[in-house]
């Protein structure tokens, strides 16, 4: 069966904009509560790396773009897309989980799989998502 690209999204975020939102185990700020799932928060708090939250945010944005929606023009929620790192020391080992309206849209577009690519340096994170049907 031939595979076709059903959507593509790319997002870039500046790390400095997230550094002010440094989270601690004592208190999760309102911004994080609005955007990240409890699993993302607990998963990322265990890590010393300061790029996991920006990567999570960028991954959500890239998925919105690949699905052709925005959180302001659809029922999609920031928490419908989760980026989790099973190994706290390895940023390149990750899983993406879809739920809610994101999962619904993904199925509606008859997507069968997706590829996610994360890249980063000292200043930026970039996430690219390609959906295949």
């Amino acid at each position, binding site marked *: 069966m031939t595979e076709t690209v059903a959507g593509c999204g790319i997002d870039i*975020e500046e790390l400095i*904009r997230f550094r002010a939102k440094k989270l601690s185990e004592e208190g999760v*700020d*309102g*911004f994080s509560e*609005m*955007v990240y799932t409890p699993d993302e928060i607990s998963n990322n708090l265990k890590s010393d790396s300061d790029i996991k939250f920006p990567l999570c*945010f960028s991954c959500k*944005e890239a998925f919105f773009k690949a699905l052709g929606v*925005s*959180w*302001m*023009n*659809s*029922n999609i*929620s*920031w928490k419908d897309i989760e980026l989790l790192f099973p190994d706290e020391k390895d940023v390149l080992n990750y899983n993406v989980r879809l739920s809610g309206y994101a999962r619904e849209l993904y199925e509606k577009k008859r997507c069968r799989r997706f590829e996610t690519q994360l890249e980063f340096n000292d200043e930026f994170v970039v996430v690219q998502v390609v959906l295949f049907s």
Partner: protein
Amino acid sequence: MGKITENTRAEVTEIVYRFFSDECEVDINSINEKTNIISDLEGDSLMFLELIEIFKKKYSLNLELKTIAKYILRHPVETIGQLIDTQLLMIEHENNLVNL
């Protein structure tokens, strides 16, 4: 729910103008109610979420992101003036915004 006074409007306006001036590194005097958030200031989702968080904290608002998204879906926000009006409605109606 908060009652909107002239003082609240002035306070919200000041916060919004200062926020975009700092975030977008533009002169505060170059911002006015007709300034377009995307095309003139290159605003993005992160800025919008930060601003919501500032107002939620400042006015102790009981306001879900989904409620805001549903409202904006019906009343798009493009300019600084529209954003200020929307922030005032959020302060006044909180989660009842969805019924407007």
